């Protein structure tokens, strides 16, 4: 019979380190149904038996405002769908932060379940000259208290010992505890009776802890959930109870004061602290890192490093993967007969797998950076420094790193939003992250600017028009993201502004195991969830570009090739001519495909943007992955798909391209409208897949796709028409 443990505690207390120490590499990650909180569990050996450990999200209190926050209480009460009831609660607390940590412990005692307290960070407490009388604490709390130092492994065997001895003697926790005023006790008991009378409707018996939360958490999730089950009148009766319970005073205040009074008494008896807080190395480091000037400089440098890591250092790895996939594709392709199956396997499946793997370097690098920054304690400082700037946009300081990362690639950026505690902020950040001009958009900008934007200087030679245009494209994303975030916060993601209460934990050395564990899990999750979607998209795109594959086109070009081989001798000239035929054939096939039919269909729609069907097809083909746009343009203009944004032949061909009536296709307004469209459109199936994974719903990625497409279209329209009106078309 296996025992189920639940690990609970404040954030930053070393819970994860302890979890790793107990469960080794056996963890499983997943999700709780209906919420976006990550579920972590593992197995450990205890007394010859297997025990299951569930690592609950870090929290300061069981009071919940949303389903995400209610998870901890629900799992502990055995009310969470799909979860086994918890047998023993293992609370991890920080010895250097006892008062605040004991707040949660005081609530956990009221669950009536066997409880063991692991007093972590004893080494840090020593350094701060904090002396704790563990026996006094254990006696006051009524539960076993085991001092440990999780990252050094000290005390873990004693902890396991305490867990095996726990038996199920819960008598200790029913004595003592905070003193509540009689009125509060009375209303609490009476509420519980009222709700238990309605248990048929509610579906379960109400635990005293749940009743307490319903009573005290005004506007909280416990109340909201109960009100949804019962009929109207419940809330108003509840309000009356609250007024009576607190004699008019705030119940939240009563609870906090009651618990802290009890805690202070325990700490007074059992803890000896120096009268003035000992300044530690951590404090000294903080003085520099949050300093007005010094701190900002260090912050800027760190951000540059993180950005560069994703933007540049991932490059060689990505090239390696690209090359590897290409090699595999060529190898397999050469062993297969020409035809639809070969194309499916090489251009569809192998390319599909490649298009998933190519994101791994950027994701793993950013996740590693984020994990290191989080683990060492710097993340909180980054949020602290950036909050003012971001709260002006309706976000919070914690959105900074995800948004910055999105300038390199939105996929790891969206994944990094997990560090944002508030659901509304997290979602808003995810929904505007794709507006940050990522590295895949750069080829479009470079190509369009080099080919069509004049290489002039204005303002007396100070500013180059080309450089300024590039900068403007980056700014457009930010300029649009700000009002969008503001609007989202006021409409779809409306709600109470969460308090920006952020603990600034002591700095510590990041733990390689914790960092590696996080990176490994994120990578695995990406491959599993997003990977399947990206792969599916790639295969669908392949099909739309391949079918209907016309045999007559094949024959026509094969005839050309044969004719040519009889005319010319073997050599470079013949090879070039054959390559040219291959390119023209590829163009014909594409022109004949479903994609192209789609392009022709939408031509009336894109004409106001100055585009013809060829540009339309390129844009359409880029919807799943914008990085294919240059190759697609190359194919359409019969230059083959190997062109890149620096290709002179592509630029020349584009310059010469015309509409049926002979007027030039690519003008400055057209180039601008193309760039603006790409800047604002969400042409990345992978990003949408990751948003789906993080929000646990298809609604949000669908919404992101829709709003950005509309935005991109309207903006491109305005830019094109405006540029023409301004006379830029004649250039």
């Amino acid at each position, binding site marked *: 019979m296996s025992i189920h443990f639940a690990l609970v505690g404040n954030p930053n207390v070393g819970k994860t380190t302890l979890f790793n120490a107990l469960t080794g590499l056996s963890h499983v990650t997943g999700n709780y149904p209906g919420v976006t909180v990550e579920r972590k569990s593992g197995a450990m050996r205890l007394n010859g038996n297997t025990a299951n450990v569930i690592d609950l999200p870090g929290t300061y209190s069981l009071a919940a405002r949303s389903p995400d926050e209610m998870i901890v209480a629900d799992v502990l009460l055995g009310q969470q769908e799909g979860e086994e009831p918890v047998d023993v609660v293992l609370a991890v607390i920080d010895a*250097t932060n006892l008062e605040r940590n004991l707040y949660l412990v005081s609530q956990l005692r009221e669950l009536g379940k066997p409880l063991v307290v692991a007093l972590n960070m004893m080494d840090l407490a020593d350094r701060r000259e904090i002396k704790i009388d563990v026996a006094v604490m254990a006696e006051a709390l009524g539960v076993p208290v085991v001092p440990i130092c999780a990252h050094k492994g000290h005390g873990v065997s004693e902890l396991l010992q305490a867990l095996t001895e726990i038996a199920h003697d819960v008598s200790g926790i029913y004595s003592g505890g905070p003193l509540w005023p009689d009125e509060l006790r009375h209303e609490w008991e009476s509420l519980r009776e009222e709700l238990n009378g309605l248990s048929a409707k509610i579906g379960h018996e109400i635990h005293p802890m749940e009743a307490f939360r319903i009573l005290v958490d005004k506007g909280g999730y416990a109340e909201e959930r109960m009100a949804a089950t019962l009929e109207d009148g419940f809330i108003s009766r509840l309000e009356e109870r609250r007024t009576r319970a607190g004699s008019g005073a705030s119940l939240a205040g009563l609870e906090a004061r009651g618990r*802290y009074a009890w805690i202070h008494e325990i700490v007074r008896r059992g803890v000896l602290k120096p009268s003035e807080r000992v300044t530690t190395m951590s404090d000294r480091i903080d003085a520099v890192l949050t300093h007005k*000037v010094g701190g900002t400089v260090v912050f800027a440098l760190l951000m540059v490093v993180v950005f560069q890591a994703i933007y540049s250092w991932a490059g060689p790895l990505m090239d390696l993967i690209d090359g590897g996939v290409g090699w595999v594709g060529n190898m397999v392709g050469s062993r297969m007969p020409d035809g639809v199956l070969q194309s499916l396997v090489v251009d569809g499946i192998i390319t599909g797998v490649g298009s998933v793997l190519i994101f791994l370097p950027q994701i793993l690098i950013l996740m590693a950076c984020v994990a290191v920054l989080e683990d060492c304690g710097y993340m909180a400082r980054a949020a602290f420094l950036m909050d003012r*700037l971001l709260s002006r946009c309706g976000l919070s300081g914690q959105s900074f790193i995800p948004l910055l990362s999105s300038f390199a690639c939105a996929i790891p950026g969206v994944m990094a939003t997990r560090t944002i505690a508030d659901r509304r902020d997290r979602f808003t950040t995810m929904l505007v992250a794709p507006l940050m001009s990522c590295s895949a958009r750069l080829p479009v900008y470079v190509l369009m600017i080099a080919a069509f934007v004049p290489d002039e200087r204005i303002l007396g030679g100070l500013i180059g028009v080309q450089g300024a245009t590039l900068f403007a494209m980056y700014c457009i994303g930010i300029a649009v993201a700000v009002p969008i975030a503001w609007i989202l916060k006021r409409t779809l993601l409306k709600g109470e502004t969460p308090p*920006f209460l952020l603990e600034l934990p002591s700095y510590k050395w990041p733990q390689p195991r914790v960092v590696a564990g996080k990176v490994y899990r994120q990578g695995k999750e990406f491959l599993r969830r997003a990977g399947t979607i990206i792969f599916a998209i790639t295969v669908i795109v392949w099909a739309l570009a391949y079918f209907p594959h016309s045999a007559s086109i094949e024959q026509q070009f094969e005839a050309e090739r044969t004719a040519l081989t009889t005319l010319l001798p073997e050599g470079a000239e013949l090879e070039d001519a054959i390559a040219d035929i291959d390119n023209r054939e590829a163009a014909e096939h594409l022109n004949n495909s479903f994609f192209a039919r789609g392009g022709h269909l939408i031509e009336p729609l894109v004409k106001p943007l100055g585009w013809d069907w060829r540009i339309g097809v390129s844009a359409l083909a880029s919807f799943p992955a914008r990085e294919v746009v240059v190759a697609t343009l190359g194919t359409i203009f019969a230059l083959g798909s190997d062109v890149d944004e620096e290709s002179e032949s592509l630029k020349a061909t584009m310059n010469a391209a015309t509409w049926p009536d002979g007027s030039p296709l690519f003008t400055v307004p057209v180039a601008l409208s193309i760039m603006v469209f790409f800047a604002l459109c969400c042409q990345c199936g992978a990003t949408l897949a990751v948003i789906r994974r993080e929000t646990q719903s298809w609604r949000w990625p669908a919404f992101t796709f829709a709003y950005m497409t509309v935005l991109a279209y309207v903006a491109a329209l305005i830019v094109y028409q405006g540029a023409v009106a301004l006379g830029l078309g004649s250039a």
Partner: protein
Amino acid sequence: MRTLDQLSPGQRGVVHSLQGDSMMHQRIQEMGVIEGAEVEVVRLAPLGDPIEISVCGYFLSLRKSEAALISIDEDDAPSGA
């Protein structure tokens, strides 16, 4: 009586009262900022907001708009060096 957002780095006091009864109030009191708690302003962020305070033996950052809801009884004695 001043509110917490009006204090400068280095100034300390005791929480006198908290105006209101929203989620913010509950959260902030759970974190230890309750009537009678000693708090000290440690620093302001480079852009002036948020502020970092020390309370209950740890460091907490909060926005000035949130700190404005907390009234402080200030120490008359000059803050330590």
